[in-house]
């Protein structure tokens, strides 16, 4: 077998020393040296589905838009309708090109009427920031990159609330899904506590000051509080399989500058009735021209074999018709699953297809998304 070592000159989060002490396996992700697994990917995945997991996601970018026209700027950049947000509410959204394809997918938090916090992907943060700066010239608003100001920790899983509640006086049960508040966590004031996540479970993402001492203390206190609940530190490996079971897109895989909103099936987060936003005209034209020609679908492998990122999808006659964007064994579902782009005519649930695995076609079937939905 062959193995590869991570490249040099990567950025490190304030929790890097703790990951090393835990003997985590580290990988290059979006220019950051990040933990991919600690005790083992399957155990970490299962901890999040059955108890809780703690993730260092400090590599994520945070960009703030502030000023009298901050909302106008957000509305111009983002496909979802931020005017619908109340203070303390967040929404999934995306930055689009003029062609209606994806520059990035993001979370928009309304901090106050003139103040929005956009959480963006690590690998795209610099590009997003430069682009927003340039696009915001005509708005009375500041665009500031606060990524270095925050460490972000995700506490995810059915026990996340119970664990985090031992560390904060804030009534966490009162925070609704995709809402947030500010409060004291582990004695640190003004922590942004959001009921959001990227695992398909209940949970919280907290934004804490990025200095090492505070970040490391909060991480350690969450771990200690979680011990009795079976919380495990979790790496990006489990984060990926968890989001894949939940069929949440990953930038650079399901969505990028070559895929549009309709193809990705994300139109419910795209408000074409908004007066104006970048990409709107192209999307309306695409819709009026008959909609997308290809669609993102869920595949379940029906035979032995794992369809992986970049593998070809074949139709019943063996013709290549598309590509897998993400594919993996699904540890909780105990199936081999994949997301893939296929022509609309072959995208119906139940369609029999195949994935070419090492030159061999392996039977697969289109299944409903998400693969996994948690019980409420």
């Amino acid at each position, binding site marked *: *077998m*062959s*193995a590869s*070592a991570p490249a040099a000159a990567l950025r490190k989060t304030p929790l890097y020393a703790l990951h090393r002490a835990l003997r985590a*396996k580290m990988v290059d992700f979006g220019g950051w040296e990040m933990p*991919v*697994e600690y005790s*083992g*990917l*399957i155990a970490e995945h299962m901890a999040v589905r059955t108890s809780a997991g703690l993730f260092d996601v400090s590599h994520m970018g945070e960009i703030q838009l502030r000023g009298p026209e901050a909302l106008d700027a957000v509305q111009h950049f983002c496909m979802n309708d931020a005017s619908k947000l109340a203070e303390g509410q967040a929404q999934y959204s995306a930055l689009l090109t003029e062609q209606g394809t994806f520059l990035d997918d993001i979370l928009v938090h309304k901090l106050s009427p003139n103040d929005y916090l956009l959480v963006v992907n690590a690998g795209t943060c610099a590009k997003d920031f430069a682009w927003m700066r340039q696009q915001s010239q005509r708005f009375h608003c500041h665009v500031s990159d606060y990524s270095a100001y925050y460490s972000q920790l995700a506490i995810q899983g059915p026990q996340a609330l119970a664990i985090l509640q031992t560390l904060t006086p804030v009534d966490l049960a009162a925070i609704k899904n995709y809402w947030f508040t500010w409060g004291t966590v582990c004695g640190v004031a003004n922590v942004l506590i959001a009921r959001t996540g990227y695992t398909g479970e209940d949970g919280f993402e907290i934004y804490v000051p990025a200095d090492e001492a505070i970040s490391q203390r909060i991480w350690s206190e969450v771990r200690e509080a979680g011990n009795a609940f079976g919380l495990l530190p979790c790496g990006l*490996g489990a984060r990926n*399989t968890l989001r894949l079971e939940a069929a949440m897109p990953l930038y650079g895989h399901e969505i990028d500058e070559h895929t549009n909103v309709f193809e990705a099936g994300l139109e419910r987060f795209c408000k074409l009735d908004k007066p104006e936003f970048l990409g709107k005209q192209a999307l309306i034209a695409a819709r009026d021209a008959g909609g997308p020609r290809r669609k993102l679908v869920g595949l379940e492998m029906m035979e*032995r074999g*794992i369809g*992986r990122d970049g593998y070809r999808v074949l139709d019943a006659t063996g013709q290549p018709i598309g590509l897998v964007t993400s594919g*993996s*064994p699904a*540890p909780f579902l105990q199936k081999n699953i994949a997301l893939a782009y296929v022509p609309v005519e072959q995208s119906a649930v139940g369609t029999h297809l195949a994935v070419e695995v*090492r030159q061999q076609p392996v039977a697969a079937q289109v299944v409903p998304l998400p693969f996994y939905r948690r019980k409420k």
Partner: protein
Amino acid sequence: MAYPNHYRYTREHEWIAIDGTTGTIGITDYAQNSLGDIVFADLPKVGATVTAGQSFGSVESVKAVSDLYAPVSGTVTAANEELNSSPEKINSAPHESWMIRVQLSNPAELNGLLTAAQYEAFIAEETAH
């Protein structure tokens, strides 16, 4: 985990144990640790021929698929069926969880393989990078 002294090793992280002209082949502790949780081993059928330095199958973890490289040339006399139902044994006991047995066609190829001490020095260097 110690690397057994009576095994020989490849730079692609397979081990081989020799008994007369039969070789038993698996992957090393370093290999299983790099791969993470193993979910599937795709092994050749009995009677297949394998060639030194060439792929004879693959092993898949949750994260990735990796080729398996034959330390020697020969004919497959057995494949470890237990790994079909319990691939995780490769993680828990890599040096006991053999994959295939091979009737060697050119035993001289063994001279090109690493001893345990040489292999340990080799992976120490890989880890340092």
